């Protein structure tokens, strides 16, 4: 991730903290390095592959909805030390939209770092109050007959959406389906669109 250089004071503080944790035997340098590497490797491609498999494999779909943590571990993602993952199933009658009004809780293990808009006060304040207005600004029109369920990620779970498989993608392979999905589709601000993959 591109980021500005940390200040010397912050680096010194971090070194003191790491020194205290390692000298007390709470963490090892190797554990810190492994965690850092896993955090930086995490990206929406993982969540996309999980959803694509759920679309093509009913048994995996059932496992994903029953226990997102175990389903992620099938993809080689370790959730040890991370909050459990829950997966919310969209239906023609129900659309899920994920937000964290209190801070920026986000299913990082399967989606990577949260986008800036997800952390913005505007998104956090408005998603719970005017979800249809927010979605319209993303170009996402939810029909009046479809209920919107805004999921405020307030505590110890992290939530990902299992969107509806778009029409016209029947018989597609997992890779082709996964290309329809990014962070926006996996938290519910956008719907997967076939044109996006065709253009890619």
């Amino acid at each position: 991730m591109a980021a500005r250089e940390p200040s010397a004071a912050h680096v010194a503080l971090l070194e003191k903290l790491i020194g205290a944790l390692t000298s007390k035997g709470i963490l090892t340098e190797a554990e810190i390095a492994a965690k850092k590497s896993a955090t930086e490797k995490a990206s929406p491609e993982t969540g996309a592959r999980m959803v694509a498999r759920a679309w093509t494999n009913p048994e995996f779909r059932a496992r994903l909805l029953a226990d997102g943590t175990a389903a992620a571990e099938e993809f080689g993602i370790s959730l040890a030390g991370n909050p459990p993952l829950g997966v919310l199933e969209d239906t023609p009658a129900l659309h899920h939209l994920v937000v964290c009004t209190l801070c920026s809780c986000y299913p990082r293990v399967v989606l990577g770092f949260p986008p800036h808009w997800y952390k913005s006060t505007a998104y956090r304040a408005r998603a719970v109050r005017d979800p249809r207005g927010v979605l319209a600004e993303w170009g996402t029109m939810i029909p009046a007959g479809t209920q919107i369920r805004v999921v405020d990620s307030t505590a110890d779970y992290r939530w990902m959406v299992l969107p509806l498989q778009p029409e016209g993608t029947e018989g597609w392979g997992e890779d082709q389906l996964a290309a329809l999905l990014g962070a926006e589709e996996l938290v519910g601000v956008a719907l997967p669109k076939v044109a996006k993959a065709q253009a890619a």
Partner: protein
Amino acid sequence: MSPQFAAGARVQVKNNRPETVMRLHLRTPHYVRGRQGIVLRALGRFPNPEDLAFNRPAPEKMLYHVLFEQQPVWNEGEAGDTLLVELFEHWLEPVEG
């Protein structure tokens, strides 16, 4: 300990402001305090974040997914739209009938 509230139970969120009395890492949004909702499911037990964040003993509390109707909370929105919030058991009271 098993959950006090079963799926489908109607509950009311306590309309408390404990943050005015002591320092707590609260995970109960103000917009649902005093509101009634329906328990969708118990999510399991987690150390109480209100104390955990301040390095106090943090006994595990049952966490629930509680569903609220959008319109009564905000006085706007579309009928049928809902809010789904993770709330701890000690914030919930049973509602009769």
